[in-house]
């Protein structure tokens, strides 16, 4: 009953694992698929290996966490081994990639194209090294160019994952659409934010600030999806703070065709996928909807 599709890719349900959460190894990706996710997004990886930031890389805040993992990545060559072991029979596999310029993005995308169903472009990490992540996604021109280069390099669908940390997310979304994105993933983590230890005066994260995620960011993510739905034509994957089936419904109503779950895995583990799919089935059964796609954009009705 939860069957749906995204950019022509069939999904057994609209729930996906969000990038960077339990996504570094094929083993954890497979565990999430077995737990009921319709698709999994890998941790973002790059051409060359990268250690990421020193610890502390995460700290709790009200309603979630802030993190500055710093895009640690073993590099595409090593990650190919992982992607080859993802069980694509029980669910779909999405590679999240990052790079410093269109060429790097295109290179990495080309390397993994045959191993995954969709490629997600991380142009939105709020704590990436200078030149990476949000420094691309905060600029419509750079965003358009990265999307365009990857679009030209691969034949599978590509999602551009955007940052909410801009004056006008619709402007960036339109640029990504123009660049040829098949869909948009909204949103990457918020802020960034900071937490300071009151005894020593030290910002707790080694990187000082980090992206905020978890239930607290949901209202912002839902608004981003709502706004971008009105101004673009391509499908949207909603992400940010989902913890319950009601949160999933909010995102669908706002205009998302599918959703991703990240931080909430911290509260109850991969089982969250099974619980939400079953709650969602119950909801649809009792509702007047016949399918997930019926629900997409429902909040925009007159």
């Amino acid at each position, binding site marked *: 009953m939860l069957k749906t599709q995204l950019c022509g890719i069939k999904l057994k349900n609209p729930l996906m694992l969000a990038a960077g959460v339990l996504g570094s190894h094929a083993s954890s990706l497979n565990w999430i698929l077995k737990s009921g996710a319709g698709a999994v997004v890998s941790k973002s990886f790059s051409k060359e290996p990268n250690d990421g930031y020193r610890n502390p890389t995460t700290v709790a805040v009200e309603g979630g966490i802030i993190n500055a993992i710093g895009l640690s990545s*073993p590099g595409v060559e090593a990650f190919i081994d992982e992607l080859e072991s993802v069980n694509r029979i029980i669910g779909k596999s999405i590679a999240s990639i990052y790079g410093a310029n269109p060429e790097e993005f295109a290179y990495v995308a080309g390397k993994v194209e045959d191993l995954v169903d969709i490629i997600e472009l991380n142009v939105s990490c709020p704590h990436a090294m200078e030149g990476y992540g949000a420094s691309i996604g905060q600029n419509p021109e750079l965003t358009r160019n990265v999307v365009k280069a990857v679009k030209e390099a691969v034949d599978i669908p590509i999602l551009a994952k955007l940052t909410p940390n801009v004056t006008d997310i619709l402007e960036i979304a339109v640029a990504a659409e123009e660049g040829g994105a098949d869909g948009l993933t909204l949103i990457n983590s918020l802020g960034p934010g900071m937490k300071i230890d009151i005894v020593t005066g030290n910002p707790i994260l*080694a990187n000082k600030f980090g992206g905020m995620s978890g239930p607290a960011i949901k209202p912002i993510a839902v608004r981003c999806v709502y706004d971008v739905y009105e101004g673009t034509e391509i499908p949207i994957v909603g992400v940010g703070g989902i913890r319950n089936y009601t949160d999933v419904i909010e995102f669908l109503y706002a205009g998302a065709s599918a959703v991703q779950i990240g931080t909430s895995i911290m509260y109850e583990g991969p089982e969250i996928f099974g619980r939400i799919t079953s709650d969602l089935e119950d909801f649809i059964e009792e509702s007047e909807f016949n399918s997930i796609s019926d629900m997409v954009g429902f909040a925009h009705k007159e």
Partner: protein
Amino acid sequence: MNVPQVIEIKKIIEETPTIKTFIFDWTMVGENIPYPGQFIMVWNFNDEKPMSISYIDVAKGELGITVKKVGKFSENLHSLKEGEKLGLRGPYGNGFDTDLRDIRVLAIGGGVGMAPIAFFTEEALKNKAQVDVVCAAQTKSELLFDKRLEARGANVYTCTDDGSCGFKGFATHRVLELIEHKEYDWAVVCGPEVMMRPLYGSLETHMIDGEYSMERYMKCAIGVCGHCCVDNTGWRICAEGPVFSSDQISEIVEFGKYHRTASGLREYF
């Protein structure tokens, strides 16, 4: 709870030339009360790493960690004085089963792997288990917690690589000798994986089930980043672990073979 609490070092104990124990005041309520096998994340305002809890005193409200000087972070901890501060968050992870009344337990610790083993042994003894401890180190002066556990009523068997304590050889040899002559119902193991791997083989051969404590590179320690996941099950060392049963160990194909570095690249032992 997932925010470091900055706490003064109450006491520092020099356990061996390379190992120190750090004692802190700790609020002992609810989920804050650690059990053996759990760890805390220790922040020295420059980096943050996992350390097993080696000691608690619930009545006094004290918790201890025991650190071996091996690199930059641990060296920095060793340079600290009593009264200086560290940030602690946790406890994290699952723990060893200590509800072992009348069970004949063989507890095996290699090097600083004795830290959680010591805490385990004390709890298990309180619960009226019979605990034999194999305490392994490179040399006699590096033996950790052997006296402490003897004083609590455990039989302690030591061994060192150089034979300086009497028995010359690895923990594996010591254990083999023991299990061929004595009956055990349960084993509890912590140490380098190059030690645990053959030990696991021997204990399986002798049909001794038990629990093994593993280490992997940790970033978040709260089960989100996925960096500590192990092949092929995907279990998180910081959440489903660090302690795994013999049956679980058999599913962890990387056990004793490889771990991952900060970037996620595999590094073979």
